[in-house]
């Protein structure tokens, strides 16, 4: 078996429909070692969720896999048969918790019946309620959830509780890799903290080995992850240790994103914060060269026509011309950017 939990090479995924072709994920590569907690961050419309769908092989109807390789513990998930994927990979090696998670519970069934259904699907034999309870209760209590949640209907659970129940259910089969999409974004701050603690506990207890968390909330990712990948307009622009990226961002996009954040610190009130001008480009027709160049304050002539290479600097990967030989002496394009 492969030692890497996840290897993604030049992955491409486009949305195809009457609206045209949206280049949502356009050639990204990522390697996740066993034991890592990786966060993927970016604005909405950057392709974060599409990336999650592509690496788990569960794409929504209009999203199509267009090329590249995704290997989960050596299984090339776009090559193996769906049956093999369902029996050998899902829940055993990898679990995926999608965004609107409340929709994934069955509203007409109690949580325990839902679990029984799921177990039957995975293992091919029937489970009695008592069996399910016995199995699940231990797992739930290990994660700090009361056993009573097994006996309620989904609508009786609060948002924070439902999210934790879903996370607990999706880790029932002890998957080695857990991929969660926006696990904290619909929750209140107190539930958010509990959710973050839960995910760290799951890993500490050895139920999962590695975690990929997709979120737009950098402060939450800072608490949860060791490593962070910043995504912009379908490509990864920066990849490094979370504290380094947040405290000393290299890529202009990361820097501007950090400048626009509102941390709850006494200094925030005296600072004049500014947002990033412009909007995320229409990915049907992404800008040539660097995709961030129309909004970048460090833009050079080469950025407008040639895609930047991935540069390794201080143990980080940055996709920007600034950190190449050209960038050191390149002339910045002068322009007025609306910073508000």
């Amino acid at each position: 078996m492969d030692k890497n939990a996840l290897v993604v090479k030049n992955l491409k995924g486009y949305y195809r429909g009457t609206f045209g072709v949206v280049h949502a994920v356009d050639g990204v590569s990522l390697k996740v070692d066993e034991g890592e907690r990786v966060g993927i961050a970016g604005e909405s419309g950057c392709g974060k969720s599409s990336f999650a769908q592509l690496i788990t092989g569960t794409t929504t109807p209009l999203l199509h896999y267009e090329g590249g390789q995704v290997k989960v513990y050596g299984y090339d998930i776009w090559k193996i048969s769906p049956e093999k994927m369902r029996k050998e990979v899902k829940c055993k090696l990898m679990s995926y918790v999608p965004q609107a998670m409340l929709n994934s519970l069955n509203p007409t069934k109690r949580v325990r019946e839902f679990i029984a259904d799921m177990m039957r699907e995975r293992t091919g034999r029937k489970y009695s309620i008592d069996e399910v309870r016995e199995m699940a209760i231990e797992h739930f209590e290990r994660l700090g959830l009361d056993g009573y949640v097994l006996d309620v209907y989904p609508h009786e659970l609060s948002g924070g509780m439902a999210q934790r129940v879903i996370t607990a259910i999706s880790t029932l089969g002890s998957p080695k890799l857990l991929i969660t999409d926006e696990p904290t974004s619909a929750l209140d701050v107190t539930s958010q903290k509990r959710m973050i603690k839960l995910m760290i506990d799951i890993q500490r207890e050895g139920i999962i080995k590695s975690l990929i968390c997709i979120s737009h909330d950098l402060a939450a990712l800072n608490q949860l992850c060791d490593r962070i990948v910043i995504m912009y307009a379908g490509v990864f622009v920066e990849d490094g240790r979370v504290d380094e990226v947040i405290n000393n961002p290299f890529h202009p996009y990361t820097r501007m994103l950090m400048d626009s954040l509102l941390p709850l610190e006494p200094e925030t009130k005296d600072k004049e914060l500014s947002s990033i001008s412009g909007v995320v480009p229409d990915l049907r027709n992404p800008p040539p060269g660097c995709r961030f160049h129309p909004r970048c304050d460090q833009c050079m002539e080469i950025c407008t026509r040639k895609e930047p290479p991935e540069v390794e600097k201080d143990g980080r990967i940055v996709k920007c011309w600034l950190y190449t030989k050209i960038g050191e002496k390149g002339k910045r394009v002068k322009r007025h950017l609306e910073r508000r």
Partner: protein
Amino acid sequence: MKGDAVVRVKNLTKLYTSGYIRTTEVVGAKNVSFDIKKGEIFCLVGESGSGKTTVGNMILRLIKPTSGKILLDGKDAFSYDKKAYWRKVQAVFQDPYSSFNFFYNVDKPLNDAFDLLENSPSKEERKKIIRSTLETIGMNPDEILGRYPHQLSGGQMQRLLIARSLIIRPSLLVADEPTSMIDASTRVAVLNELLRLKKVAKMSVLFITHDLAQAYYIGDRIAIMKKGEIIEQGPVRKVIFSPKHPYTKNLVASVPPLHERWEL
């Protein structure tokens, strides 16, 4: 009574009742009292279901309070004629995408705003005022006017709504989670716009949010709500960085810090 309070809310209570035979009551807001001074940004913060929006809607006269009083410029809010009231109190809501009619271009809501005024200006003047208002909030009128809502970003739409309320020049703007559907990178633009309103137009703002950091950035005073009641209120710096109530302490401690890590 102090002269500079624009809005004064006294013991405001709202009970939502349902059923005729076996009536059940849900507390929306309970004994809420605060006042907002001229040119002040007052923040109402709480978790979901704490009754922030209920209070905001009552001040907007969208729902009737069960008991308690709302005084606008010293007069009972419900004694005003509706049109006259909304000349003085305006709102920006959470979802910019549902605040616009998708069949009309964005000039229409701006134009319609003039109908609320007592002496509405002529067509030519209206155009001039719209252009100058857009310029004061830093938007290029040529880029915005004549466009349709789907051609604008959420942040631009929210700022347009703020521009609209600038045309009416109300004494109070109720901003109910105006940034929660906008990306972090453009969120600050909306907040800065509200700060500018306060500075330039001396407008009072009731800012309703669940995000303590945003309240801290733009607010002067803050009230923390829990289950319909205000449990702590005061200047933002004091309430957030030296909270008295255990609930506020817990709330502040739950916000993930950006530059340090929790011991979990």
